[in-house]
């Protein structure tokens, strides 16, 4: 008797003819009866596996973050270099069969690449939320509840879900940022690895030394110079996350640096006199056009959009 037919009988898929055929076979010998009973018991025993518990609300929340949330559009003007940089990283990876992220043997297919000018929101299954501003983020191939590791090249804001049993590690260049659960910004490129801490504490491990960073602090590791510097967070270090730019009696020339970073544009000032004018204002989720218009009115300057950059000049 074919096992498939016996199983069909056990799972109640057999037709009348097959039922008769199997029952006759069972009655034919003690051996047949033993085979049948063992299969039937296996079928019944295998049901003992209780369903796993999956949190629907958390699942939907994660789905929404990754798929439905509106991505705040950032002004796209000339800084498309990240798009090319990401494409180049992938191309080099394909050419050489390895890539930047594979050097520790923990490559994972779960990767996120933000080639756009929008913020890519990522929800991980431990409840952590990441806003990938630019670049690439890759989950460790052995990612699990007890092995929370990611690799970053680019800039991302992390809101790590607290788990006292499992630290969360970000491998960034030659450095590691280790946390239990807090909010912070990490920037990792070929020149620097920078951590801006919003809340809590994080361990910043560099080839030089290991530091404990406190809330409100920023630590920068300069790769070429092998130096670490610690300072207070800048007024606009979290501007893209908070969607605001704050200028508290700041020279226009300095403010321009933050505006350029925020909108991804290049701005030039005609002369030092304009650059020395101070501004005292707060822009909340404003378009670049509005920001430039407000600056133009309050400082009495003219703003021109030229080929590849914006020029601020005297009226």
């Amino acid at each position, binding site marked *: 008797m074919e096992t498939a037919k*016996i199983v069909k009988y056990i799972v109640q898929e057999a037709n009348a003819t097959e039922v008769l055929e199997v029952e006759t076979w069972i009655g034919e010998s003690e051996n047949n009866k033993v085979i049948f009973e063992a299969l039937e018991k296996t079928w019944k025993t295998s049901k003992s596996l209780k*369903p*796993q518990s999956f949190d629907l609300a958390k699942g939907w929340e994660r789905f929404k973050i990754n798929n439905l949330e509106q991505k705040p559009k950032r002004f796209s003007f000339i800084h498309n270099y990240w798009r090319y940089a990401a494409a180049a990283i992938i191309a080099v990876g394909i050419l050489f069969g390895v890539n930047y992220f594979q050097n520790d043997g923990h490559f994972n297919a779960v990767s996120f690449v933000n080639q756009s000018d929008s913020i890519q929101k990522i929800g991980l299954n431990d409840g952590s939320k990441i806003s990938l501003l630019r670049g690439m983020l890759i989950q460790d191939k052995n990612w699990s509840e007890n092995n929370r590791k990611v690799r970053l090249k680019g800039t991302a804001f992390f809101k790590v879900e607290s788990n006292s049993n499992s630290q969360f590690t970000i491998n960034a260049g030659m450095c590691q940022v280790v946390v239990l659960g807090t909010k912070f910004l990490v920037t990792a490129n070929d020149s620097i690895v920078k951590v801006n801490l919003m809340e809590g504490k994080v361990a910043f491990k560099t080839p030089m030394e290991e530091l404990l960073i406190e809330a409100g602090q920023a630590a920068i590791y300069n790769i070429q110079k092998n130096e670490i510097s610690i300072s207070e967070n800048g007024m606009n270090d979290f501007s893209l996350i908070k969607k605001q730019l704050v200028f508290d009696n700041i020279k226009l020339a300095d403010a321009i640096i933050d505006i350029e970073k925020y909108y991804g544009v290049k701005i030039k000032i005609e002369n030092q006199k304009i650059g020395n004018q101070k501004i005292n204002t707060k822009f909340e989720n404003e378009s670049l056009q509005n920001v430039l218009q407000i600056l133009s009115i309050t400082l009495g300057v003219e703003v021109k959009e030229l080929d590849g950059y914006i020029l601020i000049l005297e009226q």
Partner: protein
Amino acid sequence: MNLNAQKGMTSIQTISEFEEIFNTYYARLCNYAYKLLLDHYRAEDAVQQVFSKLWEKRGEYNINTSIQSYLYKATYNMSINEIKRTQKFNALENEELVKLSDFDADVANNMNELETAIEKALSIIPEKCRAIFVMSRYEEMKYKDIAQNLGISIKTVENQMGKALKLMRMHLSEFISVVLILLMK
């Protein structure tokens, strides 16, 4: 939206309709993926990706494709790809292809010995065969529905079910004897 298993894909138009489908199938599909992958996180990742693809392509599918069929087939494909990917890396690292330590440690701690043995037995069954067995045993699907969901013949389902239960019997023999003894007491 009047949701039923045979409802066509083209009926998904709004977020609330999509959320209803998500609410209906999420935990079920996670459990299905879990029994194929035997890993809580990977199961959720696979199902999240299935729903992402469904959301991206909502309304594009033929009305004859039922939501349930699509979701089970997509979860199956996603899980099989994940298994192959893991096997590839494990093979590169010269590890055993499937082993008990792959199980989620916390989940394993909360399971009794029998459940652990069932999971181990499941992990040894070839993927395609395992998918069919899981649909029949835990999703309680009829052979014809399994065949439809996976795009295979009923005859294939019958044969694979025979093979699966035979393998399960071999790997659960110790426990079946215990169950028999307990039943006889």
